[in-house]
C-alpha cells in the first residue's frame, strides 16, 4: 500500500494533465466557457439571498451581516466537497475503458476529480474577494495564514471520502443515489446557511460531530468574523482525523483495486 502510494507520486504528470483535460473538456462547446466556474456559485448565492432576504426574511439572524457573504464562505467550499463526492461515485465506472484496457492506476481518477473541483473552488475565490472588498470587511493577516491550512484539511478529507465512495460504488451502484440524498441532508446539517450560534445546545453537539462543520466554521472565522482565529483546536483534530480517514480510504481502495477491472 505504501509502495502504491509512493508510485502515485510518479503519476503526478498524468494527474496534472488529466486535471487540465477535465477542466478544458468540461466547458468545451459552451459559450461562456470558464466563466461558468464563476457564474455557478454566484447563481447559487443569488438563490439563497433571494430566499433569505425576500421569501423568508424573518429567519436569518440580524446579527450576521452581510448574510450573503456569510453564506458564500460556506457554499463555495461545500460545492467543492459535494461535487467531488458525487462525481467520484461514478468516476471508476465512467473510466471503465481505461481500467479494463490500459494498465492504469485507478486512484488517479478520483484524485483528478477532487483536484479539478478544487480548481473550480479556487476560481470562485475571486468572487469572494470581490464581495469582501465590496462590503469592506477587514481581513487580518494572522487569520488569513490559516486559510491554506483549512484548504489542505478539506483536500485530505475529501480525497479520503472520495476514494472510499468511488471504490465501493463499483460494487454497489446504489451508493450514487444514496449519496445525492445524503449530501442534501448533510448540507442542511452543516452551519452554512445559518450560523453555528443559532443551533440549540443539543443540536450543537450534533453539529460538532459533522466534520464539515469545522471546515465551514473555519472559513467563516477567517473570512467573515473579526478577530482571532478561534477554531484552531477543532481544525487540528479534524486534520489528524482526515489523515487517518485518507489512509483508511486508500487501504480500502488498494484492497479492492484488483476487482475494478472485472466489476466496472
Amino acid at each position: 500500500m505504501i509502495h502504491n502510494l509512493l508510485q502515485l507520486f510518479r503519476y503526478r504528470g498524468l494527474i496534472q494533465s488529466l486535471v487540465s483535460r477535465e477542466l478544458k473538456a468540461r466547458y468545451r462547446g459552451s459559450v461562456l466557457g470558464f466563466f461558468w466556474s464563476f457564474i455557478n456559485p454566484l447563481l447559487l448565492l443569488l438563490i439563497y439571498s433571494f430566499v433569505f432576504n425576500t421569501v423568508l426574511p424573518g429567519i436569518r439572524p440580524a446579527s450576521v451581516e452581510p448574510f450573503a457573504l456569510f453564506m458564500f464562505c460556506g457554499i463555495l467550499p461545500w460545492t467543492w466537497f459535494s461535487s467531488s463526492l458525487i462525481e467520484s461515485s461514478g468516476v471508476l465506472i465512467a473510466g471503465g475503458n481505461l481500467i479494463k484496457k490500459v494498465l492504469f492506476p485507478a486512484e488517479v481518477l478520483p484524485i483528478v476529480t477532487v483536484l479539478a473541483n478544487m480548481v473550480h473552488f479556487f476560481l470562485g475565490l475571486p468572487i469572494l474577494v470581490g464581495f469582501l472588498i465590496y462590503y469592506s470587511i477587514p481581513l487580518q493577516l494572522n487569520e488569513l495564514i490559516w486559510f491554506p491550512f483549512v484548504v489542505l484539511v478539506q483536500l485530505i478529507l475529501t480525497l479520503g471520502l472520495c476514494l472510499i465512495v468511488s471504490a465501493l460504488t463499483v460494487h454497489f451502484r446504489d451508493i450514487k443515489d444514496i449519496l445525492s440524498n445524503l449530501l442534501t441532508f448533510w448540507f442542511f446539517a452543516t452551519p452554512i446557511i445559518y450560523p453555528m450560534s443559532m443551533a440549540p445546545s443539543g443540536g450543537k453537539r450534533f453539529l460538532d460531530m459533522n466534520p464539515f462543520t469545522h471546515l465551514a466554521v473555519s472559513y467563516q472565522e477567517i473570512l467573515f468574523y473579526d478577530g482571532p482565529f478561534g477554531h484552531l483546536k477543532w481544525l487540528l483534530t479534524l486534520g489528524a482525523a482526515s489523515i487517518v480517514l485518507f489512509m483508511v480510504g486508500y487501504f480500502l481502495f488498494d484492497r479492492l483495486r484488483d476487482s475494478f477491472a472485472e466489476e466496472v
Partner: protein
Amino acid sequence: MHAIDIDHATKIYRRYGRRRQFATLKSALLSGSLITDLKPAETFTALQDVSLRVATGETVGVIGPNGSGKSTLLKLVAGITKPTSGTVNVNGRISALIELGAGFHPEISGRENVIINGIMLGLSKREVLQKFEEIVEFAGLEEFIEAPVKTYSSGMYARLGFAVAIHVNPDVLLVDEILAVGDQGFTHKCLDKFAEFRRRGKTILLVTHSLSLVERFCDDAVWLDSGLIKAVGDPKRVVDAYLSHVEKQEEQQLEADDIKTRKMTETSSEPLTTGEASMDDMFQVAEGRWGSREVEILDVTLVGDDGKSAHVFHSGDRMSVRVHINAEKPVSDFVFGVGLFNADGVCCYGTNTDLEQLVSKEIDGEGTVDFMIDSLDLVAGTYKLDVAVHKRDGYPYDYHRLLYTFRMKSRTNDVGIYRPRHKWKFPSNVRFIGPLK
C-alpha cells in the same frame, strides 16, 4: 531470459446474473480476489492452468476460437487483471494494444489526447512531445490533429491510438486483433512496424484470427481452446492442427443443422398433390420439402472419399450424394435430380436423369441412388443441395429444397464458384522465388 513467464495461471471470473455484491465485496476486501466466496456454479473459468514462456525477442501468435481465453491471457500479461492462481511475470516495459484509443476524451483535440494517452501509456511528457510529430505522421492525421477526437472516423481514431501505443517503445508488445481496423495501407505500415520491432529484438505477443499472419510472422504459435493450451510450437504445425479441429467442429455443426432442418420439414410439410406449383418452387430460395411422396426420399447423406458421411470437403475431393428412396407402389414415370447452390443462392450446377436422357421404367420398393462427383472443383464456401424425385412433367413426388449443406475448404483464397483444374506454366525468363513459406 524470458520476457514473459506465465506459470500455471488460472483466471476465474464471476458469472453475472445473480447479483451477490456482498459476497464479492467481502472476498475482494479480505483476500483480494472476487470469487473466494462464490460457488463453482457462479464462476466461469476463462483460463485454466496455463503455462507459457516467451523468450526475449520472440514473436508468438495466439490463436483459438472466440471465448477461448485469448484476450484474458493478454490482459494477464499486461497486468490489467491478476490471475486467480499462479503467477505472471513480465520483464521490461509493456505496451498493450488491446483497445486502440482507450482513454481518448472525445471533446478535446487529437493533439491533447496524444499527449495524455502517451503519458498514460508510460511516457514522460517530454518524451511524448519529442515523438509527437512522428506519431501524427504515422497516423496520417496531420490535417486533423487540432480537431476534437469526437469528429474523427473510427479508422482515424484507431490509427491515432495505434500510433501512440507503438511509439511508447515497449520491450514487450501485446497486440489484440487490431490490424483489422485500418485500410490496406495502414495495415502494411503496422506490419512494417512490427517487423522493425522484431529486428530490434522486442518481444511480441499477438492475438489474432488471421492464421496466415501467424504462419508468416510468428516464431511460435499457441492454440487456446476453452481456457486450455491445446498446442504450442511451430506456427505451421499449430495452425494446421487448429484448422483440422475447426473442420471437425464444423462437420458436427453441419450435421446437427441438417438433422434440424430435416426434422422441421418433416413435421411441417403436408404431402402436396398438385404438380402446378413445382415450376415456381424451383426458383424460390426458401428451403423446404414438398411432393406427393409416391416416391419418397427417406434420407440423403453426403459421402466422402473414405465412404463415411461428411459435411466438409476440400477442393478436388470426391463426393457422393447418397439418396435413400422408397416407392410404396411401383412407379414408372420418374426423374431423379440434383441441384447445387452456393450461399448467395446461385445455382452452380443442376442436372437430372431426364436431361441426361435416361428413360424411366420402374421403381419398386426401397433402394439407394448415388450421385457421384469425381472431383468437387469448387472454391471455398458453403453450398446447399436440392435433391428431388419428380415426374417428367415436373409433378413432384418428393422435393427436398436446399436441405443439405456442405462446406468447401481451401487454403487458397481464389474467388468465384468454379475452380477448374489448372496449372501455371512460365517461360524461363519469368521467375518466382517459390511458394510462400
